[in-house]
Structure formats: C-alpha cells, structure tokens
C-alpha cells in the first residue's frame, strides 16, 4: 500500500517535466486557460450544460461558469476533480443520453484537467528549487560514524526507517525528525562515544572453535586423512548435510568467522560451493565461497567478518551459524573458528589519533584542541568560538562535579553528535542575489553524494584552502572520490533506490511454484544489477547499456538461471551474451523482474510503470479513486483468460484507458520473463505468451529484444530520466518545474561525453544547481 503513497508523492512534479511535452511546458500557464476557452468549454457546452448550466443545475452543479482555477483553495478545483471522476468513469453524461463525447474528447478533457492540476501544484510550491535542510539518513549516519571513529558499529540500524520520496531516502523535505528519532540519536551518540573514547580494557573476546570431525552430532561421510594428516569432515553436495555452530555474542562489534575447508578431490573442474548462513527465523545467506579442488592442498582458509549492532545483540545474542554445501560438489571441513569482537585498534583509530596523550589526564586546553581537530571533523567545518563556549562550559561543570577528563570529554563529544551541526547538513542562508554554498558546505554535498558519508581530510583541506571552487580541483576531487572504495555507497544507493533493489524482499516467492528460488539465486540476481552498474561506472561504458547491452554480469548460478552455458564459479564477470539471447539491459535482469512481481504471477502493469517512471521519465499518474471496475469481475465458473483478454477491459473504461493504453503493452513485452526472471514460453495458466505490443508513439514491437530496441529509440528520454534520478539524489531534494532547464542542459550533454556516468556526475557537480543552497 505504501507503494501507492510514494507513487502519488512521486507523481507530483516529475510528471510535470514530461507531461506536457517540453515544447509546450514553457508556455503551459497560458495554455491551460487557452485550452479551456478553445477546447474544454465548447465540449462542456455541447454535452453537459443542458443539465448543469444556467437553466438547470442538477445536483447543484454548474459547469459553464467553472473557471480554469486549480489552486488548493479553489472550489472550482474540487469541481473539476468531480468532472474528471464522473466523465472518466462513464457516469456522465448519463447512459440514457444519446449524444455522448467520443473517446478522444474524453481523453482531451481528462488530460487537460490532470495537466492543469499538476501545474497548479508546481507553481504554488514554496521554496522551489531549494535544498531543504537535510538530516543524515540511516545509511549516511552509519557511514559517517564509521569514517569519523574508524569503527563499524551500525548504530543507526535501530533508528526509525527513513521517509522515502520518489524512491530516494535522502530528500530533505521528506526526512523528518521526531522526538523518537532524537532519542535514538542520543542513545546512539552515547554508545559510540563510550565505545570509541574509552579507557576500559578491550572487551573479552568470545571464541568458539569446532574441530569438524569431532562434531559428534552427525558423522555423514567418512573421516578423511588429508595430505597433512588433518582430519576433515565430509559434507555431501546435494544433501542436507551441514554444520551448525551456536555462538553467544558478548557485545556489539565485528565478529570473524573463519574455516579451514577443502573440496572433495573428485569434484574436478567445478568448484564446490560453500555457504555460510545464519539461522534465525529464516536462513540468511551471509557469504558464499567457491572451493576449488586441489590434491596437494591441505585445505584453504576462508574468512568472513560480520558486524552486529547494539540492536542485533540486544535482540538476539544467541546466534547459529551454518556451514553448508550448496552445489553438487562435496566439501571437506577441518575446523571452524568464530571470534569477536575483533578490532585493529583499541578503543578506536579516532581516539589514538585525537587523544594521543591518553585518556585520564587533561585540562580544558586539551579539550579545546580535541574539539578544534576532531570536533571540526564531526561538524564538517572549522569550529567557531560560539561552538566552543558551551562545550567548554559542559566540560568544566562536569569536571567540577568530580568527573575525570575522559568522562567530561565523552559528554562533550556526545553533545556534538546530537547537535544540529552534526545531524543536519547545515547550509547557511545567504542574502546575495545568487546564493552559493560555502566551500565546506560544498564539500559535504559532494561527499554525501559520492560517498554517503562525511568529507575526509583531503576534501576538507581543499575546502579550507578555498580550492573547491576551482574547476580543476573539483574534477580532481570527484575522480579521486569515485576511485575510493567508499564510492560503493553510490552503487548501493542508486541501485537500491533508483533501480529498486532494496525492495527485493517485499514479496515472498512461493518455493513450490519456483523450486529453483534460493538464497544463492537471490544474492546472485542482486549482484548482477549492482555489478552491471559498477561496470558501467568504473569502465566508462555507455549508459545506454542500461537500456540494452550485448553483455551482462554473471556468475555460475545466474548463468544457469538464464540458460547461458560455460560459466563456472561464484565470481561475477562480464559475459558476452549469445547473439540470440533476450538478456542484456536492465529490464531483462532477474532482480528487477522479481521485484516487479507479486511472488506468484508477473505484474505487467507494475513492470511497465516502473519502466516509464525510471527509464523514460514518463510516470503515469496513480489510478483515480472510486473506479467502477464492474467489468473486471471474474464470472462464476469462467475459464482462465489470457492476460491480454483480462486487460482488454481497460479499454472499456475511459478513466483507465487514457493511461493504460501507454502502460499495458510495455508490460506485455516482458511477459516471457516469469516472476523470478527466468525465460518462459507459456504463462501461469499454460497459455502461450504473446509478447507483442505498441508504444504510445505507434512503434510496434514483438518480444523483449524489440521492446529494448523501441526503448533505445527513446534514448533522449532516457538521458533526461537518468539525469533526473542522479540530480535528485545528488541534491537531496525533489526536482521542481523550475529545474527543467537544468535537467535538459545536463541531459543534452550526455551524448557529448560519450554517455558515461562519470561525465554525468561531473556535469552535475559543475552545474549551478549543485552549488546553490
């Protein structure tokens, strides 16, 4: 249901950028009135005025005096909505009337009302084109803390979920701050500071060591004596053999799971797949490993780190890790070792760096130095006297009460972490005509765009030196940041939000209907789309690959799912697709097909809507309320009908058809992909699939390959769409009507820089919009 909410929110202004068409949009305010006089009024006079005019006002409604007014307080606006509902649902004119508007006339009327409504929304919006004070979202909070303190703690996992807007969770307008959230900030800050600025000895490490062959609970298979006389336990492939290791977490932190394993020597060629899982309510795949057979090896050491947040430990301290073979090959396990919390530096890299003199002794002078160095990192800008004063007061008061230096420092740092200067990306008001971000604000905007995290020393130094405004330095920083591992956040967030991967678990797959569905397939799907995005970003490939490509990123599991031979192992690699393959491009990727299904059947409308919205910048409006759907009823005892027949009913209801005519057939084009993205020739009712259709511009296609060609023909729309998505994400705000020119300008340059994401990102950060508060 929340899908509808976000859809309707999303609809708002983005739709405006596209409907009406760009050429009309510029002078659209005139056209609403003009069209009203020229087309709409005559239509109403012809069909409606006899009963709803000067003589009669049935139901108290009079349409001839209706003005083209759509402001939020306008009574006329409400009546127009009524007109839209009544006419759209064929309720008006009454059925007995012989003279009725044609489908085109109805379509014209409904489109006009919608466009006028949207325009009113856009033009009345306050603070248009302004980034509204953004608070850190959960991802940004976690990353920021990690980069400040040098310790992964994931404390924000216990914050309330962030509000999303247009699919993005970094939109300032939408992110709210409640008392509940502030309480969590306080708790998180206290935890982080007491953990990272501490004089306590390191927490005692928990250790669990299991010699596999001594695990008396089951001895499936023989005990082997390997080349170095280590004893192994054999876990057979294609069986339920596994090893479960129960552990009790002692404190939050990072735990390391390692194991000495080998592949059964006879499993030649293909590696044996080992999965490390965690068994809670469900079995969660943590990591998969390919174990290659090698006669002369005494096994290989695999290792995996997992971080448990305070919330994780609070919720379930007793955990079960599971080692299981997931492929055909048999596995040999020598031992499993689990230990934690593990850390490189105690209590934290930040402590070692910023409190080198130790913890217990110190005065307000030391405090001041700490705030001016580490505190400046926390606030992402230099500390000013106004910041310092209350912090020093707090420190002094606490010392007077008998607290030691460290205790007082902890309090100061905690206070900084709940201050608005940390929680919000503060951009100061500027009264100039052309307001600009200052260098530090720009550094933050850049860093939360590319890293979803706080600026590092290099970036802050550039800001301090006033160099960020120099184009060459800006470009250097962008390229440096994109090359940094932290830019993986960009991959994760854009694939998670623009490409909806975060929604992968929204609906459960029925395992009876789809026996090949597994945790391994699930992560393989997700990784294909991420790796695909990464490949395009890192290697400067054309963004048109998102629409169609003759390659994709595969591992063995997904290649099998796609019926592509010759791929072994779990590593993702770029694979040239066979000539006749329907794969390539985003819309054939299994993850998307899965996300856009309901777990049982495909959802052609959802798929089509997704494409229109996320690839073509042409989102259809949400369906109107109170639709008369009497035609859709499944009659008693009726036979299953084809999708096409079921959708035919949309044509009978004008309120549906005006939008569904551009939606439905795109969805038909993907019907060969089942709910988990595997190829099929017949649908769930065993009826043959007809994957032909026609785009709104009249271009017809048959099957996914031709659909992709048809999409490629709209590459300008795609460039505009990807610009809108990146720009929305980069700025952390909704795009407005007034941003249309910016979007057009950036999108137009995409072909000029060879359709690269780097080019797009550079154009965005160079744009005026990016340096404006």
């Amino acid at each position: 249901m929340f899908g509808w909410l976000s859809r309707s929110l999303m609809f708002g202004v983005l739709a405006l950028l596209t409907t009406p068409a760009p050429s009309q949009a510029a002078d659209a305010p005139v056209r609403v009135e003009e069209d009203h006089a020229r087309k709409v009024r005559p239509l109403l006079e012809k069909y409606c005025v006899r009963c709803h005019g000067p003589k009669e006002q049935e139901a108290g409604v009079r349409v001839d005096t209706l003005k083209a007014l759509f402001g939020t307080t306008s009574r006329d606006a409400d009546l127009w909505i009524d007109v839209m509902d009544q006419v759209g649902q064929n309720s008006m004119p009454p059925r007995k009337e012989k003279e009725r508007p044609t489908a085109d006339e109805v379509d014209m009327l409904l489109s006009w009302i919608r466009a006028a409504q949207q325009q009113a929304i856009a033009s009345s919006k306050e603070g248009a084109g302004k980034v509204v004070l953004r608070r850190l979202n959960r991802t940004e909070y976690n990353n920021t803390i990690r980069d400040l303190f040098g310790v992964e703690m994931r404390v924000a996992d216990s914050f309330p979920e962030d509000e999303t807007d247009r699919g993005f969770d970094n939109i300032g307008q939408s992110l709210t701050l409640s008392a509940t959230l502030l309480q969590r900030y306080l708790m998180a800050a206290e935890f982080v500071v007491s953990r990272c600025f501490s004089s306590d000895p390191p927490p005692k490490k928990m250790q669990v060591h299991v010699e596999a062959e001594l695990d008396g609970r089951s001895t499936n298979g023989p005990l082997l004596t390997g080349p170095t006389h280590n004893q192994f336990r054999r876990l057979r492939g294609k069986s339920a053999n596994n090893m479960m290791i129960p552990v009790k977490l002692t404190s939050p932190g990072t735990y390391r799971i390692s194991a000495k394993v080998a592949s059964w020597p006879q499993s030649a060629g293909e590696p044996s797949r080992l999965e490390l899982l965690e068994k809670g309510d469900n079995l969660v795949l943590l990591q998969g490993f390919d174990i290659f057979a090698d006669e002369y090896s005494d096994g290989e050491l695999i290792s995996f780190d997992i971080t448990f947040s305070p919330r994780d430990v609070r919720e379930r301290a007793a955990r079960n890790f599971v080692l299981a073979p997931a492929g055909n090959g048999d596995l040999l396990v020598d031992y499993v070792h689990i230990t934690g919390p593990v850390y490189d530096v105690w209590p934290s890299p930040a402590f070692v760096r910023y409190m080198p003199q130790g913890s217990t002794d110190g005065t307000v002078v030391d405090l001041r130095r700490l705030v001016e160095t580490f505190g400046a990192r926390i606030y992402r800008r230099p500390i000013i006297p106004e910041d310092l004063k209350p912090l020093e007061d707090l420190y002094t008061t606490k010392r007077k009460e008998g607290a030691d230096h460290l205790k007082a420092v902890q309090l100061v740092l905690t206070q900084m972490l709940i201050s608005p200067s940390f929680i919000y990306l503060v951009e100061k008001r500027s009264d100039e005509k052309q307001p600009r971000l200052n260098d530090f604000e720009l550094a933050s905007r850049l860093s939360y765009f590319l890293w979803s995290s706080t600026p590092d020393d290099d970036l802050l130094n550039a800001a301090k030196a006033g160099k960020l405004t120099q184009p060459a330095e800006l470009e250097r920083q962008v390229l440096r940041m994109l090359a940094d591992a932290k830019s993986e956040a960009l991959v994760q967030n854009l694939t998670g939000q623009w490409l909806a991967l975060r929604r992968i678990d929204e609906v459960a797959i029925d395992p009876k209907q789809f026996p090949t569905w597994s945790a391994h397939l699930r992560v393989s799907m997700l990784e294909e789309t991420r790796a695909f995005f990464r490949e395009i970003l890192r290697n400067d490939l054309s963004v048109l690959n998102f629409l169609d490509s003759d390659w994709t990123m595969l591992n063995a599991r997904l290649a099998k799912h796609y019926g592509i031979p010759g791929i072994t192992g779990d590593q993702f690699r770029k694979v040239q697709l066979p000539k006749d393959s329907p794969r390539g491009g985003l819309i054939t990727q299994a993850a998307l097909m899965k996300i856009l299904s309901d777990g049982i059947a495909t959802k052609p409308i959802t798929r089509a809507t997704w494409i229109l919205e996320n690839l073509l910048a042409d989102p259809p409006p949400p369906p109107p309320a109170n639709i008369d759907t009497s035609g859709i009823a499944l009659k008693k005892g009726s036979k299953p009908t084809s999708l096409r027949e079921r959708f035919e009913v949309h044509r009978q209801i004008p309120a549906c058809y005006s939008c569904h005519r551009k939606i439905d057939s795109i969805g038909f084009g993907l019907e060969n992909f089942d709910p988990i993205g595997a190829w099929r020739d017949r649908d769930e009712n065993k009826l043959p699939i007809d994957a032909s259709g026609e785009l709104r511009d009249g271009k017809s296609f048959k099957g996914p390959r031709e659909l992709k060609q048809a999409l490629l023909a709209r590459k300008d729309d795609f460039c505009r769409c990807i610009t809108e998505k990146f720009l929305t994400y980069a700025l952390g705000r909704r795009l407005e009507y007034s941003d249309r020119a910016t979007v057009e300008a950036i999108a137009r340059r995409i072909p000029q820089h060879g359709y690269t994401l780097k080019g797009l990102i550079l154009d965005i950060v160079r744009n005026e919009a990016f340096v404006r508060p």
Partner: protein
Amino acid sequence: MMHRRTFLRAAAGIGLSLPWLEAMADSPKTGAAGDLPRRLGFVHVPNGMYMTHFQPAQAGKNFTLPYSLAALEPFRSRLNYYTGLDDPNSAHNYAGFLTGTDVAATPGFNFRNTISIDQVVANSPIGQATRFPAINLATSSSMRISWSADSVSQPTLSKPQDLYEMLFVQDPRQIIDARLQHLKDEKRMLDAVLVDAKRVHQQLGAADQRKLDEYLTAVRAVEKDLQRLESWMNKPKPQAKMPQHKIGGPEGLRRLNLSLIALALQTDSTRVFTYYAHDDRLPGHNSHHGGSHCGNEEFADLKTMPANHRDFVEINKLEATIFADFIAQLATMKEGDSTVLDNSCLVYGSAHRMLGHHHRSVPLLSVGSLGGKIRTGYHHVFSPFPVNGEMNRKLSAEYRGRPIGDLHLTLLQQLGIDVKKHGMGSNDIGEICA
C-alpha cells in the same frame, strides 16, 4: 511503590502482577467501574473486506453477525457495527484512518496530516498517566497509521520480543541508577543543544528554519519525556511471562502481539494502542491485497462463489477470528466487578471498503462500552449502503456517509477529553453515547 503483588491467571495462562489494581487497593474507591482506567484500541486491516459477508444485513438491535464475523458472536451485545462512516482519504494510503483528515487533497504536495486519535489520548492526562502514553504496533515497522500533531508518522514496533521487553523486562538496579545519573547529563546536553539550535536557526533561510523547528520541537519533547522517564524509573515494571501460542508464522505473530497488548492494557502500562495488521500472505491463502481485487460483483452463496472470492472471505474471517480471540482475552481479565473489555473500546476495521480503493462506508466495528460510556449491541446505519449489486456504481456516484472523524471525536469525548473536532469530524455521534 508496591506493597503486595496480586497474581492472576490470565486467559493464556500468564502469571502477572497488576500494579494498577494494587494502587487501587489503597484507594477507598476500589472496584467502581467509574474509577477504572478506560482504554481505546484500533486494529486496522488494510485493503478492505468482502462486504457481503462482513457487514450485517439488518440494522438496529436485531442484527446477525455475518459469516466472516462469526467468531465475535459471544460479544454481539457488546459490539457495534457501523455502516456509513467514510474514510476521508481518497488517495491510496491509510494516513487518514485515525486522523480523519483528507491528507491527499493534492497528492505529492504539502503532505500534512493532523494528529491521530491515539496521539490525542497519549498527550492527554489519560495517556500521560501510564508508563507508555501510547503503543503503536504494525506488521512491519514501515507501516504507520499514527501521526503526531506535527505530521510525523509515529514509529511502530513489529516484533513481539521488542514489545515484551519494553513492557515487562525490568532493568537491573545498577543500570537504573546509572540511567538516573545519565538523565541529568542528558538534560544538560539537551539544554545546550537547544541554545546551539537556536543559533543555527537564525542563520537559516525560511524553509530550513521550518525544518529545524522539528528539531526544536523534538528536543523539548525529549526533555519533557526525560522528566517523565525519571519519574517512572523507580517504579518497577509489572511482570508477565511471554504469552505462548501454538500457531506460528504471521498469524502467530499477530496473536502474540495482541496477547501482549491485552497484558499491557490489563497492567495499565498503556491506555491506547494502534495496530496496523497487514499480513498480506496468511498461510494457506492468497494475498489479502490480491483478494480484495476479486471483482465488484459479490456473491452471497459461499459454496458456489469463485474460489478467489471464497479465499478472500476466509482471510477476512481468519483475521476477525484472531481479533475475537483477543477480545475474549480482555473479557476474562477481571477488574473489580468488571473486566478490561468492559472498560475499553476496541475498534476494528479498514480504511478501504474494497476493490478500487473505495473509502466510503468502510468496514468498521467496535467492541466494548468504554466503561459504560458507549451504548453497544447495535448495527448503526448512518447512511444505508447495500452490500451487493449496485454498490460500487452507487459509491462512486452519489454516496456520502459521515466522516469517520465523528466516531473518533465521540470516543475522545466519552473518554473525557475535551475536543470539539477531530480531522473532518465535528459532530459527535449521539446515538452511540450511553
């Protein structure tokens, strides 16, 4: 402080102590229903119901409960069914169900909701008198129907374990002591950041200032809450065992959450709760959402209706049965001469009628008389609504019922909270008042 502990056996065989009754024992007014706490609860099931088998066919006193509501039969005289209450919200979400406000007049623009009924109670002396001013539950934490006055959706708990810990697990003394000391530091820090925030405020543009107002409001609310927490810190939590249910899966979780809520009401840990119960895929059934799209034409004959219709009816029935079992628990919880159920009013329903996002005359019923304040045993028909045939055409064309806010307003007033308006509701429903 508690002097003695009274252990009772609750329906599910749970040993627990009743601090509230304890407190009452010290007061001379023991046992009179008028002195017992009154509670409100709201269980919302999204996506509507199969109305032919959910809405009673007869109006007034002599109505029979239809198939889906059969499990509520033992409570027929203690419930009201409402026909003709409209959810205000024409967009596709449930933001108006408890706020009574049409937040979607302009979708995607200025999304401002008003306060929901549970938060009105939470902010009143009634809510402030308990350890938890309100409890908001949902199947998943992203589902929210409770809103603050500043249009912030209230976070929801979804895991029974979380709820149990919050309600009944006592922190050790040393943690409480440390916490009390801590509260002092926290208050100090909040005072300081408030000054900080005001300074930042002056440097911001108007839109940013409004955003930062959320922060200022939050700081003040947290400060106030810290004071409240401090006062509860020394009072032990009531004790109860985790209820056990044989059924697992989503159904088991819903039952468990409701059992815990029953205990929360009984122990007077809270006096108002909301539960957004959306288990879209209950075992053995298709999705609730999918089911609600089974068509406009409803069938009366359960045996011959299409299988997908029957499945949807069965989902409705199962969910109503889970609710009825919760009611049954409340009915066995003695409070003086009455029961927790007698002193509560539990509302059950959906913000949508059915398919096509119809929000007129939504499925809605309430159980319990709110300590004799609500007249029960009626099917109230505010505006007649046929359950079959023409319904959707009629709906979209001319049907108008009463705003659901009228019911909220009435409940609030009967609870003794002085409000004149709730969302779009400004007329109390006299017929349901005792």
